């Protein structure tokens, strides 16, 4: 096969994947202009697909741009953000696709948020209204999203609670009367009401203990198994290992590797030195930190942003590596034997 044929075949494969993808993100970049002419490059050239029934975990250190990516997909960025690229969300009827980046506020508010993209928030306690019961908040969301009649609303709210494994006996409680795990389920129930095909979970397990983390991510996995696409944004590698099909590693605003979870967490391991470093820092592995700290997103180096901390860096790394074949590195490690 000639090189041209190989490329054509690869294109066909990626085009095919993009077609059944619920979400297809291409060259997505988000920049913030600050006063004084500084620019924060929060997300650069993100490129990934997410299919129905699939869970993609987006992992990386805090401040690497993960949450900005989620906000961009919901059109919830502040006014000084400049975006480029596309994020195509499949239409439920399979007809047209919506570009979440180009869509106007009206489209996002009326057809996307809550209806086609559900958000499981980082801090449910802050996401829920403190002065109203869980039931009242669920019913309000049912009314706003589906226009269900008053009588049917009660049933719809209870169904949503049940789907999120929120116990019916706690529906008449206020958020402060709930434990962290239950508050998280209440927030998940809200995210599920619109029956969105894409769920964004932004650090859904921060502050929960291990048992609750496991339970929360298992429930999210179940929603993916029901045919939804799940983007799990987390710094908790154990949570990602538990439920993800694929893992995307983000460093300094760039996705540097996307790998199948079984390879990433398995004996072969990831290929990017940063991803290897993250895993080696785990207490059940080498427990060795990556030396140094990530660069400022407002002062990114010319070349590979990880090079200053990388044990394998050479002169080559002063050129920024392209993200090709799911990897952006000049010196990828070979799979471990």
């Amino acid at each position: 096969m000639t090189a041209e044929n190989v490329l054509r075949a690869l294109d066909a494969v990626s085009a095919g994947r993009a077609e059944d993808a619920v979400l297809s993100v291409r060259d997505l970049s988000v920049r913030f202009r600050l006063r004084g002419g500084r620019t924060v490059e929060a997300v650069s050239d993100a490129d990934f697909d997410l299919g129905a029934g699939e869970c993609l975990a987006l992992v990386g250190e805090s401040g690497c741009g993960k949450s900005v990516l989620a906000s961009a997909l919901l059109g919830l960025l502040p006014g000084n953000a400049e975006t480029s690229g596309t994020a195509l969300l499949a239409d439920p009827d399979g007809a047209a696709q919506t570009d979440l980046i180009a869509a106007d506020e009206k489209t996002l508010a009326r057809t996307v948020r809550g209806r086609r993209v559900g958000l499981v928030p980082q801090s449910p306690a802050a996401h829920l209204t403190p002065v109203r019961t869980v039931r009242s908040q669920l019913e309000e969301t049912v009314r706003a999203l589906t226009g269900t009649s008053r009588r049917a609303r009660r049933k719809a709210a209870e169904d949503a609670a049940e789907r999120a494994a929120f116990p019916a006996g706690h529906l008449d409680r206020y958020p402060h009367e709930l434990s962290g795990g239950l508050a998280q389920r209440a927030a998940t129930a809200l995210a599920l009401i619109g029956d969105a095909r894409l769920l964004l979970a932004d650090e859904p397990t921060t502050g929960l203990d291990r048992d609750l983390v496991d339970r929360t991510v298992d429930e999210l996995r179940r929603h993916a198994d029901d045919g939804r696409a799940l983007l799990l944004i987390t710094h908790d590698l154990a949570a990602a290992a538990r439920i993800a099909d694929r893992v995307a590693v983000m460093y300094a605003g760039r996705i540097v590797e996307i790998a199948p979870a079984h390879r990433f967490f398995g004996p072969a391991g990831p290929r990017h030195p940063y991803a290897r470093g993250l895993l080696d820092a785990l207490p059940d592995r080498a427990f060795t930190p990556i030396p140094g700290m990530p660069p400022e997103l407002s002062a990114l180096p010319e070349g590979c942003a990880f090079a200053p901390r990388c044990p394998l860096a050479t002169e080559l790394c002063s050129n920024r590596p392209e993200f090709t074949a799911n990897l952006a590195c000049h010196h990828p490690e070979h799979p471990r034997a």
Partner: protein
Amino acid sequence: MLELDTVTAGYDRRAPVFRGASLTVAPGESVGLLGPSGCGKSTLARVAALLHRPDAGRFVLDGTEVTAWRHRAPRELRTAVGVVFQQPRTAADPRLTLADLLVEPLRATGRRAEAAARLAELAPAVGLTPDLLGRRAHEVSDGQLQRACLGRALALRPRWLICDEMTAMLDASTTAALVAAVETYREETGAGLLAVGHDRVLLRRWCDRTVEWKDCLPAEEGP
């Protein structure tokens, strides 16, 4: 020796968070206290850090009983204990630069003259580069701010260190870096450590021994 002997503590005498808890940390020893959220382990950490007075039982620190203090425990005992909390955002004064934050305990105890020299030791010990030291809390990441909070806890060279979920908000690499900084300090000074948390894998790897909190009084709501 840091010794909690059948201690009862809480925020309401009629409904204490826990009753009769006992725990000992020997000099130079590291003990991990494991338990689910809401079981009272943070309250126990606050008692050990002399921030919360127990309602009953005895707390003995280096041979001195410190159970019956009124508003504040005696300074010479408080300064023997360094504390790192879970949430650096709420534990750090937003008006201070990281440099000021690191040496705040020296100012507060009238040892301002030593501040510059101690800062020069502390900043590299917790992995803070000079360009970060001039910034305030909102200009740094959670991990960088937690590094500063750890440095602040070490500023007075405490004999005891209490870390209450120090790394719960942090990624794997920053977690490993902060634990390494604590361990380096302990090797140099022989300080004892009480690390409270829910991450079994982490605390077992980090500490000489771990204690599992089983009979927690306030039960988690729901299933």
